[in-house]
């Protein structure tokens, strides 16, 4: 019996040791530059968890990098997925400080659940493009081509913003498309096209830009195109309101706009 007690004690000790380590792991504001960051009186510290639409992956990584360079005390953990998956996670208790959606419908779900803090604001716009393989081997030039039955077309699921936007574009153009798959976020659509498994998909122009050399975009004329509006909001119960506010402000600052624009977003 004493053996079991010993095992129990050791495991308890391990558990508490791990807990202690986790608590100590908060970043210490060492090696701060002497130059004060823009317009902040007290230096920002702590963790910031940002839930952002999959289409924001590259731009928010760049924004986070710039923000943490300006505020070295802050560590940012981004979580990128389809906006609908993200808002579902937040409503079900995921700890997030900021939510950036690729449409207003999913932001509205956050508001309906009374989980927003303050008003959301539109910080970027995006347009749709047809993603095709580099060199456009299937000669896809317009939305109507996607109805061709020799093509494998992959779209995002209707719950994902780009899935809905894509359907709106098809409706405007009067095209009926039968996709082979409804992917969980826009990056999966880009992946299936760049792997060559799909011939075409509807994505944001920024995703084509981020997709590298294996994908290229076919422009959708403005009369059929849909402008995706990206709202951002603080999440209620944020553990780090000052840093979260500063990040949201940074996204709309001149530097933030410059970064977003460099990834192909249209900034208001």
């Amino acid at each position, binding site marked *: 019996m004493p053996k079991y*007690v010993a095992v129990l004690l050791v495991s308890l000790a391990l558990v508490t040791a791990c807990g202690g380590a986790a608590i100590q792991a908060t970043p210490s504001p060492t090696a701060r530059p002497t130059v004060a960051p823009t317009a902040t009186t007290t230096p920002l510290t702590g963790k910031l968890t940002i839930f952002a639409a999959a289409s924001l992956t590259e731009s928010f990584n760049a924004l986070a990098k710039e923000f943490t360079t300006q505020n070295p005390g802050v560590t940012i953990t981004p979580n990128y997925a389809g906006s609908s*998956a993200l808002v*579902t996670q937040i409503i079900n208790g995921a700890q997030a400080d900021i939510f950036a959606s690729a449409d207003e419908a999913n932001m509205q779900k956050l508001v309906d659940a009374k989980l927003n803090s303050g008003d959301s604001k539109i910080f970027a716009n995006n347009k749709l493009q047809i993603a095709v393989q580099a060199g456009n081997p299937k000669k896809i030039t317009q939305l109507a081509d996607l109805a061709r039955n020799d093509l494998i077309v992959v779209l995002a*699921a209707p719950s994902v913003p780009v899935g809905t936007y894509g359907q709106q574009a098809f409706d405007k153009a009067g095209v009926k498309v039968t996709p082979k798959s409804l992917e*969980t976020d826009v990056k999966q659509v880009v992946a299936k096209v760049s792997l*060559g498994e799909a011939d075409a998909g509807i994505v944001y122009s920024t995703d084509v830009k981020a997709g590298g050399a294996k994908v290229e975009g076919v422009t959708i004329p403005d009369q059929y195109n849909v402008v995706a509006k990206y709202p951002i909001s603080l999440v209620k119960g944020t553990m780090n309101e000052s840093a979260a506010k500063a990040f949201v402000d940074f996204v709309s600052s001149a530097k933030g706009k410059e970064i977003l624009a460099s990834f192909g977003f249209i900034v208001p």
Partner: protein
Amino acid sequence: MTRPRPDAATIAFVGLAIVAAAFFILPLIALIVRSPWSHALADLTAPNVAEALRLSLVCSLAAAALSAVFGIPLAWVYARIAFPGRSVVRAITTLPLVLPPVVGGIALLVAFGRRGVFGESLDAIGVRLPFTTAGVIVAETFVAMPFFVITVEAALRSMDRRYEEAARTLGADRARVLRTVTLPLIGPSIAAGLVLAWARALGEFGATITFAGNFPGTTQTMPLAAYLALETNIDSAVLLGLVLLAVSMVVLIALRDRLLGSA
């Protein structure tokens, strides 16, 4: 050994055991409590759900059947024929037991996708797996067959070889021994392996959505439908979860003597 010390340990263990049991029981209770019972029947017969259920059953049964057709010979070879590199081949073919299913899906995609390493030749002869129901069956077989193979191989290794030897000395050839002695003797294990493989195929998510995609009626199985429903209609997601739970319970009850002993 004094009296109080074992008591303290017993209390601690029973306490931890209760936490462990609650950890499994509470989510199941929640699933039942949150189920939209008032409109459960309507939700279950909604075209999307019915389609997903049908597709799940068809694909998982096909995967279980394929696992048996190819898995029995594979298990037999592992158990009866010594060949160089057997342990390596065996390890590779049972890898999906521990491999994250999404990784399996990516591997299948780069192997048998339209532009995959071997998929281009498949495509040339008109076989296309991604975004097809056949692709779902392939993905499910990939993750499920190892369960079948290890179950049957264990039975082949632990069975009394003297029956086979007696049959051979009495003049039966290898095929006849296999048919009339070996297979009947390991019958219960084949059944258990089938059920395990089928249950694994039924619950398959990661490899399926990665390799076969997600489209209602062709590749959207129950787990995929449940996952996507969570983002739009949580009632429907809970209900789909409950159906899968019920199916799993039936499997477990059917297998309880084999897996758990009679508790």
